[in-house]
C-alpha cells in the first residue's frame, strides 16, 4: 500500500477560509494542483467557511455604502487586461526540467545557491508574508540532512524525487507538514535528486532543518 501525505485538515480549512499565511498557502496551492482529494476537501471547507460567515454577527456598513455601491455599478466596465509577457513554465535544476507549478508562475524566484554539501536552494519571493520564508530546495541523491527539531511549522511539497525521514517516505506530489514537536532526519533517496518547495514559518526561531540551513543566508 502506498501512503500519500497531505496537508492537515486545519491547514486546508485555513486555506479555504483565506486565513493561512501566504507562504504556506503557496505550498498548499502547489499540492492542490496535483491532488484531487485535497481540492475536494478545500471545496467542502470553503462551503463550510461561507456558511459560518452567515452565522457571524453582522458588522453594519457606513450609511452611504449602498448609495456608493449603486453608483459604482453604473460606471463603465473596464476592458479586461491582456495577459502580460509569457511566464516561465519550467523549473530547471541542472539536468532536471520539471513543469513549474502554476502557483509559482507569478512569483520572483532567485537563482540556485549552494547551502551545504549536496544542497542548493533558491528563494521564492512572498513579500506579503513576513512570517515565513519560502524556498525551493534541490538535494543530491543520498544526501542526509541534519537531524533537527522544528521551531515553527515547515510545509514541504515534494516536486521531484523522494526522501525518507526515518518515519515515512515522501514522494513527488506529497506534502509534509512538520510541526514543532517533530524530530526527524530526512535522507534523500539514492535513486535520484529531490526538489521541494518549502515554507518555513516562525522566522524568529529558525531551529528547523531548513531554517538552520538558511540561517547564514537570510535575515530571519
Amino acid at each position, binding site marked *: 500500500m502506498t501512503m500519500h501525505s497531505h496537508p492537515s485538515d486545519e491547514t486546508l*480549512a485555513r486555506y*479555504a*477560509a483565506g486565513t493561512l499565511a501566504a507562504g504556506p498557502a503557496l505550498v498548499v496551492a502547489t499540492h492542490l494542483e496535483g491532488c484531487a482529494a485535497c*481540492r475536494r476537501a478545500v471545496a467542502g*471547507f470553503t462551503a*463550510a467557511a461561507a456558511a459560518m460567515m452567515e452565522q457571524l454577527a453582522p*458588522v*453594519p456598513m457606513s450609511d452611504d455604502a449602498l448609495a456608493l455601491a449603486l453608483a459604482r455599478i453604473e460606471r463603465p466596465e473596464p476592458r479586461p487586461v491582456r495577459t502580460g509577457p509569457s511566464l516561465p513554465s519550467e523549473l530547471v535544476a541542472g539536468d532536471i526540467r520539471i513543469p513549474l507549478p502554476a502557483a509559482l508562475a507569478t512569483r520572483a524566484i532567485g537563482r540556485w545557491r549552494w547551502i551545504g554539501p549536496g544542497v542548493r536552494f533558491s528563494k521564492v519571493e512572498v513579500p506579503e508574508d513576513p512570517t515565513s520564508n519560502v524556498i525551493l530546495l534541490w538535494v543530491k541523491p543520498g544526501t542526509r540532512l541534519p537531524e533537527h527539531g522544528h521551531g515553527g511549522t515547515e510545509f514541504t511539497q515534494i516536486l521531484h524525487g523522494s526522501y525518507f525521514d526515518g518515519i515515512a517516505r515522501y514522494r513527488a506530489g506529497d506534502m509534509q507538514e512538520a510541526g514543532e514537536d517533530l524530530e526527524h532526519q530526512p535522507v534523500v533517496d539514492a535513486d535520484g535528486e529531490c526538489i521541494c518547495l518549502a515554507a518555513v514559518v516562525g522566522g524568529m526561531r529558525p531551529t528547523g532543518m531548513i531554517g538552520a540551513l538558511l540561517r547564514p543566508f537570510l535575515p530571519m
Partner: protein
Amino acid sequence: MTRPDDETKLDADGLGRLLQAIAERRDRDAYARLFRHFSPRLKAFLMRGGLAANVAEELVQDTMLSVWRKADYFDPARGSAVTWVFTIARNLRIDHARANRHGTPEPDPSDLPEPADLSDDLLISGERDARLREALRTLSEEQAQVVRLSFFSDKPHSEIASELGLPLGTVKSRIRLALMRLRTLLDDAE
C-alpha cells in the same frame, strides 16, 4: 440603514434567485437586496481576519462590484450563492494583501482573472452545500467556536488558548476533533 429584518434574512435559494435576476436583467433592486444581505456579513468576516473596518469596507465594495459584473458566472447547480460570494471576497482579500505589499495599485476586481477556485472541481454541488449547512448545525457550540476560530482568525493556537482561558493542548485537540467531525460531515454530504 434601517431595513425590515426580512430584507436582510434571505435563504440560500432566495439569494441565488437574486443573483440570477442580476445576470438575466441587470436587476438593480435585486442587487440592493443582495448588498443589504451580504455587505455586513462580509465586513464581519474580513474584520475577523484582522482587517481594519475601513479596509474591510472597501473590500466589501469591491466584492459586491465583482458580484454585479460576474453574476452570469453563478450557477446554482454548482454551489450556493453564499459560497460563491464568499469565494470572491476571500480571493480579493488575498490579492489585496499581495498588491499592497508590492506597492502596486490595486487591480480593479473586474481586471482580475476568474478566480481559479470557481472552476468545476473546486465547487461542491448546491445540494451538498445545503446538506452541509444542515450538518453544521449539529456541531456543539463548543465545537463551532473552535472551528470558527481556526477558520477565521490568523492567530496562533497559543493566542487562541489565552483568549479562551484554556490550556494550549486542549485548544489543539479541540480544533483537531472539531475539524475531523466537520470533515466527516463533509464526506457524508457527498
